[in-house]
């Protein structure tokens, strides 16, 4: 891995909406740097540009200008959980993870081993052979995290990983993120749950209206306010 796990420089993204193709600038020059082994929280109100930044980083959207450099060698070393994930409901959890493993050209033995391991990690062993259409929102979120980790990625991007989870599920996901950190992985996640961000993150960036308005260590933020919530409110409202 190079110096930065993710380096976003001067990122602009304009989309054209409606019949008249009206231009809307979603990103207005985003700059941020995620270091190796960081657990990095990307915060901001709805519509700040967090998801778009992640999508551009993954190549799902093209930047209008600026650049995103990933410190890993291609998407083979990246894992991604989209926001409100929807998966193939005609597949069982096991089949779905097997399908994702195939996309990384894993051989049959490695595939089976990894699928079983992840099903255990996200506590879905009992529901492994049920179709995804029968999964609850929390179960879908957990299978989504499992698919993001199928290739044992060096860089993990999670878009709202705690959404829809019950307290037990949240603790499990937090443990997964902690374990990834312990194993030297880099995690970047978007979240609105500031207590989770405080607990898990080493660094954070706060976005507002398509730009990063604050970036730094969580410890730095905590020196300026009593709680992360207070700090966040001060940054996004001033």
């Amino acid at each position, binding site marked *: 891995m190079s110096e930065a796990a993710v380096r976003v420089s001067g990122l602009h993204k304009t989309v054209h909406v409606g019949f008249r193709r009206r231009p809307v600038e979603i990103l207005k020059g985003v700059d941020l740097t995620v270091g190796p082994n960081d657990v990095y929280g990307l915060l901001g109100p709805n519509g700040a540009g967090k998801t778009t930044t992640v999508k551009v980083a993954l190549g799902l959207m093209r930047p209008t200008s600026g650049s995103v450099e990933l410190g890993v060698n291609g998407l083979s070393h990246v894992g991604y959980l*989209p926001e409100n994930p*929807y998966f*193939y409901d005609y*597949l069982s959890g096991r089949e779905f993870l097997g399908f*994702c493993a195939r*996309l*990384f*050209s894993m051989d049959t033995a490695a595939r089976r081993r990894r699928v079983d391991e992840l099903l255990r990690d996200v506590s879905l062993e009992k529901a492994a052979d049920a179709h995804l259409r029968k999964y609850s929102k929390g179960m879908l979120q957990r299978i989504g995290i499992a698919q993001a980790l199928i290739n044992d990625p060096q860089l993990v*991007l999670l878009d709202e990983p705690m959404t829809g989870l019950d307290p037990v599920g949240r603790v499990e996901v937090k443990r997964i993120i902690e374990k990834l950190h312990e194993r030297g992985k880099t995690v970047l996640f978007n979240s609105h749950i500031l207590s989770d961000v405080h607990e898990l993150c080493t660094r954070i960036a706060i976005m507002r209206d398509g730009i990063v308005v604050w970036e730094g260590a969580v410890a730095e933020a905590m020196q300026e306010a009593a709680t992360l919530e207070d700090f966040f409110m001060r940054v996004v409202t001033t």
Partner: protein
Amino acid sequence: MNQVVAIAVNTFKETIRDRVLAVIVVFALLMIVGGIWLGSISLGQQGRMMQDFGLVAVTAFGLIVAVFVAAGLVHKEVEKRTVFVLFSKPVSRAAFITGKFIGLCGTMGLVLAGMGGFLFLLVWLVAGDLSGMILVAVLMIYVQLLAIIAVTIFFSTLGSAILASVLGICVFVAGQLSHNVLSLTRLGHNAVTGGLSWIVYVIIPNFSAVDVKAGVVGESTLAWSQIGLWTAYLLAYVVVVLALATLVFRRKEF
């Protein structure tokens, strides 16, 4: 290559597990059975009527499956946002389009094999005709439908699933009449009309070059070399259309 196979297998599972497909196949089989009644009211032509009617049923229901399933393949992935999961992994747009196509070809192969085999057995049991040409005809229908699947996937990368379905059916109908378009290019005294007709003739897959059904019921003779050339032409057509679909899909953002 692994990605193509994975997507193809997944598409096969997706389409084969769709209950609507089972309903369509049941209807097709019922219609093929209906050919027995049609054959019984014809004078001494029972086998021929059953074959003719059965092949029309196989074509019509095969077309319904090809067009409506192909139109939803790409569109559903975009709409339900499963593309996020796919394209955040090392999956190229070309692998996605090719995998989707191959997966549906597998399903279509199974559906046509079932309908064709059923028709073959029915004609044999009811009319006593053991005609292998039925199976050849079903194979030729399959090749035609592969071209329609490719065309519909291409249209689905451009617009909505409904539009893709309608255009897919239009191309199928136009392909059956493509010899008429060729006649226009020869008849026309106007260079512009002639040129336009020629362009349309080249763009639309030529399904009328080999009249499979006429060959089966004995109205014309089918030469194997002719069938081989025609198949090769349609497969080349599929490759070109899928390449175009990939080019269009590459420009999409999600």
